């Protein structure tokens, strides 16, 4: 029984860390964007305040059960991925479900929440939500291709689908996978641009076009849950990249540095780009990123 409590406590700690780090990154991204635009920008903890404000909203409306549970679905994805993805190497508090699922499981659990959330968005009856969802799903088909190609290349090369094993490979060989499988890393990073939905791939939310798309009918506690889930999810994805390509992290500081370095890529790319149309975005992902994905697979086969 003690073990179970320990597991639960560990999970809670992991989630809290993920939430804090993730939401800070989002605030930092606002700050950095502002600096790029020659503004002072909000404080880096601005997103905390926003989340707190949303949580302290006293009223909320929903259009039906699916919208009500949509954020809960979203949370499943975020928390499950952060629990399965190894956050820190060899730290008992952060083991959680690391050995219960593998990369394929991660790929699919990552879709669970967005799909549930999309159902919630669909139930609102707001056309903007549905349009946003279709854009999001279409774009997902776009960026998953290079992303999976990169993963397949890694899995083929090291004969494992377990993230822990891939991490250990890097420790043993002393070389990060981003150097030993460079093409996979390039493809994966390009796919990451879509995954984080910054410009030019922010076609889902697209506040000026779609009134924030799927979230347009969510306010108050629903938006709060979605926002927290988004930050946890962002952290989970970054950690996954760090685990796969940068040899994981031994302590939190290392993790934060590595993840933030990765996080800068989509953010800075986004700050300087206008928005794509959906099909342009899809085709972009099926262009160079997929080419690099092919290279990665060929590389994996040859070496």
């Amino acid at each position, binding site marked *: 029984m003690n073990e179970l409590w320990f597991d639960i406590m560990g999970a809670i700690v992991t989630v809290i860390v993920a939430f804090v780090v993730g939401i800070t990154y989002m605030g930092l991204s*606002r700050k950095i964007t*502002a600096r790029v*635009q*020659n*503004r*002072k*920008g*909000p*404080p880096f903890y*601005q997103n905390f*305040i*926003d989340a*707190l*404000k949303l949580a*302290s*909203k*006293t*009223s*909320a*409306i929903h259009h039906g059960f699916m919208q009500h549970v949509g954020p809960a679905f979203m949370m499943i994805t975020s928390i499950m991925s952060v629990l399965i993805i190894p956050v820190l190497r060899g730290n008992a508090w952060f083991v959680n479900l690391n050995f219960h699922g593998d990369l394929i499981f991660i790929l699919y659990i990552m879709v669970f929440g967005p799909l549930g959330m999309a159902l919630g968005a669909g139930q609102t009856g707001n056309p903007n939500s549905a349009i946003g969802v279709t854009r999001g799903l279409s774009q997902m088909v776009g960026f998953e291709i290079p992303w999976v190609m990169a993963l397949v290349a890694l899995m083929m090369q090291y004969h494992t689908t377990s993230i822990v094993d891939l991490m250990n490979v890097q420790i043993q060989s002393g070389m990060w996978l981003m150097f030993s499988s460079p093409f996979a890393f390039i493809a994966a990073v390009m796919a990451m641009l879509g995954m984080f939905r910054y410009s030019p791939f922010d076609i889902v939310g697209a*506040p000026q076009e*779609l*009134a*924030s798309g799927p*979230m*347009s*009918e*969510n*306010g*108050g506690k629903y*938006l709060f849950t979605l926002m927290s889930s988004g930050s946890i999810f962002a952290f989970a994805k970054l950690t996954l990249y760090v685990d796969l390509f940068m040899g994981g992290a031994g302590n939190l500081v290392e993790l934060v540095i590595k993840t933030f370095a990765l996080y800068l890529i989509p953010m800075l790319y986004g700050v300087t780009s206008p928005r794509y149309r959906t099909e342009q975005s899809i085709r972009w992902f099926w262009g160079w990123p997929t080419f690099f994905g092919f290279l990665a697979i060929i590389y994996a086969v040859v070496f």
Partner: protein
Amino acid sequence: MINDKNSQKIVDFISNWARKHSIWVLGYGTGCGAIEIPPTMTSRYDAERLGIRGAATPRQADVLLITGYLTTKTLKRVIRVYEQMQDPKYVVGFGSCTINGGMYYDSYNTINVLDKYLPVDVYINGCMPRPEAVLSGFGKLQQLIGEGKANGATKYKENLEWYRANQKKVIPNWVMPEYNW
């Protein structure tokens, strides 16, 4: 524990602090005043540093910013938007037109006094108000929120019949969902 008065106070304090520093504005750009919003938000005045940012839909917004005159036609939409916003919510009247009709005071189809139809928390004077004035208005609003005095929404709920009567006076064909709290 929640019902405990002291803890309630603490919760209120924190909430109000958060509300104060995170103001999501739904700009209802009905009139010429909307032209002053972009300079307010962009690098010259940068309202975001105060936690003020635009919201995409009324569901997510905290503040309804009415920029300029309201015709009887747009009033209906504004009411609709206001009622769709989630509590707590505030209205900022922007420019002279919302105070007394401004230069359109004698037009047959504009609203002279916005407060008769929606509970305005803060007025920003001017025709147009410059971004400095806008920021100062928001500063006032933040102050009110922090003190817990920006209670326009409560007022609206309490005096709903009066507001409704006024609204229905100017809006001839009233087909709108009921506002039930």
